[in-house]
């Protein structure tokens, strides 16, 4: 793939961001609509401002592949060449080579916007919810990557297994009409 093909036009990029936002909202309502909610109007969500990125979201969920995923507040992102969420701190070069990536499953897609800016998009199917990228982004970057329970996957268990294990007590029940605790401009919407 050459530079031109891979380059994301700014307009396309922001359209994609909007699509992600809509997907979050739709995923939430569709997921909720198709499940019998145990607590009728409440669903589990984690507060990204409390999360300490411990990695238990990856291992404690009752699902084989956790219902908790990384999401990205694109409007907060610095679109850095050197991304604290994408690159390992000891990356030798700041490219997309596997050995330089923090994500253990290659779930973050990086695209060139314009020199020196890149976009970073989460491929949810690959995300195991380990929070490594979130920790990298929070520590070295500006916290635009964060964790959320995705309601198109979550079973809304009576007792969320992650909530019990979470060392930060970041899990809470939220109204199903507002199933996400978002960051960036999405939070103000």
């Amino acid at each position, binding site marked *: 793939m050459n*530079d031109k093909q*891979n380059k994301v036009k700014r307009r396309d990029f922001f359209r994609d961001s909007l699509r992600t936002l809509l997907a979050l909202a739709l995923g939430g309502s569709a997921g909720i609509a198709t499940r019998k909610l145990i607590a009728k109007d409440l669903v589990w969500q984690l507060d990204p401002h409390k999360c300490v990125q411990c990695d238990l979201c990856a291992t404690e969920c009752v699902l084989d592949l956790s219902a908790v995923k990384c999401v990205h507040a694109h409007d907060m992102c610095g679109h850095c060449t050197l991304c604290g969420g994408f690159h390992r*701190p*000891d990356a030798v*070069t700041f490219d997309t080579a*596997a050995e330089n990536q923090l994500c*253990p499953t290659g779930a973050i897609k990086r695209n060139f916007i314009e020199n020196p800016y890149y976009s970073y998009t989460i491929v949810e199917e690959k995300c195991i919810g380990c929070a490594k990228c979130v920790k990298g982004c929070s520590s*070295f970057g500006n916290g635009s990557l964060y964790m959320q329970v995705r309601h198109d996957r979550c079973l809304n268990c009576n007792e969320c297994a992650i909530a019990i294990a979470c060392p930060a007590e970041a899990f809470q029940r939220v109204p199903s009409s507002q199933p996400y605790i978002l960051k960036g401009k999405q939070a103000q919407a």
Partner: protein
Amino acid sequence: MQTSSNLAKYAFIAVAGLAFVAGFFFKDNKPGRENTPAQQTPLISLDQYLVPIPPELIGYQEIDQIETELEKVSAIAVQGANLYLAGDREIRIYRSAGSEFTRIELAQPATAMAVSPAGQIYAGFYNHVQVFSPAGKLVGTWELIPGEAHITSIAAGEKDILVADAGNRIVWRYQLNGKIAGRIGERNVDAGQLGFVIPGPFFDIALADEDVLWAVNPGMLALQNYSLDGKMRSSWQKISVDVDGFCGCCNPTHLALLPDGAFVTAEKGIPRVKIHEPSGDLRTVVAGPKQFADGVVIADLAINAQQHILVLDPAAKAVRIFAQK
């Protein structure tokens, strides 16, 4: 036949040569490369990078602390024997070592502060600057900065006041009368200036002398040197997770200049304070990650007349003073 086989051979050599040259060109950044599916690498803990720094690399020790008991501290500055501290809705002036201070009350918390050689105090509030006399009297409120301004640092000279704006990714050059006289560090790709890459509210500047400004370009992990007419003169960049460099995407977060031209830097992610030679090489470490609370982001740096390094630590809510061992 022979001709066509030769042509094929030359074509192959040409393509291979081009591929080699292209590979060399894009060695550091491969914007055009397809995402490589990462192999299942073992999960790493970022804590592994918070390793203690070997004691022989630490050339400073903490000798004192000024506790502030403020909720949120934001900036420090030194002028003569005075230490100035901004936090909550006040600026404090410590006129001698110790805990006695006079207070300037502010309508809102300052996001940046500097003191000129003449003792005028400049406080930044996101999109504007207020000026206080050496005695602490409000003497001016300057022209608003347009756009989504976020003032993160001020450098005050005798003739110019430089204001770093992380929101607009620019350094504004003000005259002493409060009029904007220029912009420093603008993106101009044709002239080879990519501009400041600022992912978060960390964008620090310092005046080396009346006409030379050093600015951190945090997204590039670089320090850049500008003349006040806006032209970049030089820069250096140290990308490394090791103690001699900077890592992540917003480092260094703060900067102060020693009289011999060395740089005092503070970093986030791996919280540490170091001194780099004018060339960028590491001279020594002032304080390592083990000397800070987990996840702390140092709020500011300053250097006093004794060349002690003053570190504004928001977790300790204190000015921590480090002296050479």
